[in-house]
């Protein structure tokens, strides 16, 4: 590894160097145009069938979100901040809105808090279904690609009714949500969520109890509890390794404290456990949505009115939420201007990246897709 360290004399450009050819070790590029990899390259070194070195190389979809945020004010930052993960856009805007509300001292109306929770949980299902579909096709299971993609439409349809857009909702704003529910939404939502949950149960038969899936994912890529903590992994990766940590429970934001749900924890730490946790979480999301629909105030304001160009004080906040891929934190530094002085986005995908070389080194090449995608990694989000 020492030959890769920058700065180095023989480099053509920083990070770009010529490598000596070895007869035994073959370098294999996975991505960046791999259909499932999602614009992310993993540089593998293989000895026969075994991976001896793994070097993840993200950055193919780096958009400079953090830099862009420094030029736009607190409201105009909303639409571009959801781009890193458009099918979980509510959850990526959540910490931003919580942080800006803390900066500006805004009190969110009660009904808006429930609407946010419903939108965030629906969005979590949309994300997880997409992820699950790709996990299916990674393992050569085309039915598992079709089913989640089809059932995802049910939830997208609900979000479409709620926010007016299928994927890029821009629904959350500092001080509440953009608009109230359309008439009769509660009944439609309840009906579709119940049917969605019924469909989820059928995934057990075709996927999770499937001996082919079990033989491919059980006991591959085992991440021990100690390593999961030490490497600072988050979300489903952490919970599959036996650590009970969900920010919705540990540091409840908005109304999660009042809602009835549980955290799913598995002890195995292998790819099978990691693939199962997001699926189990979707049942909890359905529970949360039903509970929130019941407890939500039936009327009232959904947004506090903001003055044009609101300015924060000379302070900073760090807020985090549980997104589909784990903890999503935003560190906002304000220096009395309408724009943030610095916005640092800390995403679950980027934090789980460190587990990739840890798990893939020593693994067989054929297990690479099963381990890689089980890390609940979304390349676009990691690049920001």
């Amino acid at each position, binding site marked *: 590894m020492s030959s*890769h360290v920058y700065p180095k004399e023989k480099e053509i450009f920083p990070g*770009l160097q010529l490598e000596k050819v070895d007869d035994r070790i073959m370098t294999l590029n996975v991505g960046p145009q791999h259909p499932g990899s999602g614009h992310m390259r993993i540089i593998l070194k293989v000895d026969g069938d075994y991976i001896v070195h793994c070097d993840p190389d993200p950055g193919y979809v780096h958009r400079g979100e953090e*830099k862009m945020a420094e030029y736009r004010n607190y409201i105009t930052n909303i639409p571009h901040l959801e781009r890193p993960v458009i099918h979980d856009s509510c959850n990526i805007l959540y910490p931003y809105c919580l942080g800006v509300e803390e900066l500006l001292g805004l009190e969110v109306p009660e009904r808006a808090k429930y609407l946010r929770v419903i939108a965030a949980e629906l969005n979590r299902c949309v994300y997880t279904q997409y992820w699950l579909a790709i996990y299916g096709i990674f393992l050569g299971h085309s039915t598992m690609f079709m089913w989640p993609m089809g059932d995802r439409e049910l939830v997208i349809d609900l979000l479409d009714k709620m926010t007016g857009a299928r994927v890029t909702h821009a629904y959350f704003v500092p001080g509440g949500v953009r608009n109230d529910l359309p008439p009769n939404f509660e009944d439609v939502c309840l009906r579709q969520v119940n049917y969605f949950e019924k469909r989820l149960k059928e995934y057990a038969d075709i996927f999770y109890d499937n001996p082919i899936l079990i033989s491919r994912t059980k006991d591959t890529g085992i991440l021990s509890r100690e390593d999961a*903590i030490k*490497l600072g992994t988050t979300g489903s990766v952490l919970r599959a390794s036996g650590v009970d940590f969900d920010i919705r429970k540990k*540091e409840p934001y908005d109304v999660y404290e009042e809602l009835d749900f549980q955290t799913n924890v598995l002890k195995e730490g292998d790819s099978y456990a990691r693939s199962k946790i997001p699926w189990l979480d979707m049942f909890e999301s359905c529970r949360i949505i039903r509970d929130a629909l019941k407890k939500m105030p039936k009327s009232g304001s959904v947004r506090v009115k903001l003055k044009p160009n609101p300015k924060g004080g000379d302070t900073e906040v*760090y807020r985090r939420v549980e997104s589909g891929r784990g*903890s999503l934190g935003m560190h906002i530094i304000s220096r009395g201007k309408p724009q943030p*002085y*610095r916005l640092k986005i800390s995403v679950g995908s980027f934090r789980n990246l460190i587990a990739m070389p840890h798990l893939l080194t020593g693994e067989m090449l054929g297990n690479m897709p099963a381990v890689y995608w089980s890390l609940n990694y979304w390349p676009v989000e990691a690049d920001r």
Partner: protein
Amino acid sequence: MSSADSTEIVKTDDSSLTSDLDKSLSDSISKKFSNVEIAYVKPDRIRVNVKKEEIIAVASFIRDELHFDHAESVGGVDYPEDKQIEVVYHLGSYTDPSLSKHILALATRAPREDVPRPGNDSTILPSLRDIFPSVSFHERECFEMLGVYFDGHPDNRRLLLPEDWADIPPLRKDFRIKGR
């Protein structure tokens, strides 16, 4: 929409909401290290500013005695008027249930040069990778985005930027986006 229309809302003082645990955490750090500045103690959020010579000792103390075990985020901030670049480590705990809500921000500053030569100038900080292995990718990102070289990090390579990026580190304030 002129700036005269805007109002500045001053945040109310929330020091009454801070718990005893918040205070005891900050007290134990300030008792142990006299040069450390406790920047603020808010509910569940503590910020500690340290000198770069001391950061290894303070970080080891935070890990071993206060049981913070992983880094949530590592972000660099450029302060051109102070001629300094700040790196903020947000640390959290999975192993200690009483600390699961808490985030401890550990901040340190490196000198900033007007003409940066990443890796070859005085903008160097000690790496916390040996204490918190979870910072390794974050520090790599910080190196390319702000030009802070982490001494002791074995892998100060490009991460997100293109390999042939030949401009200054983009998160510095003197790097301007075109047309803005």
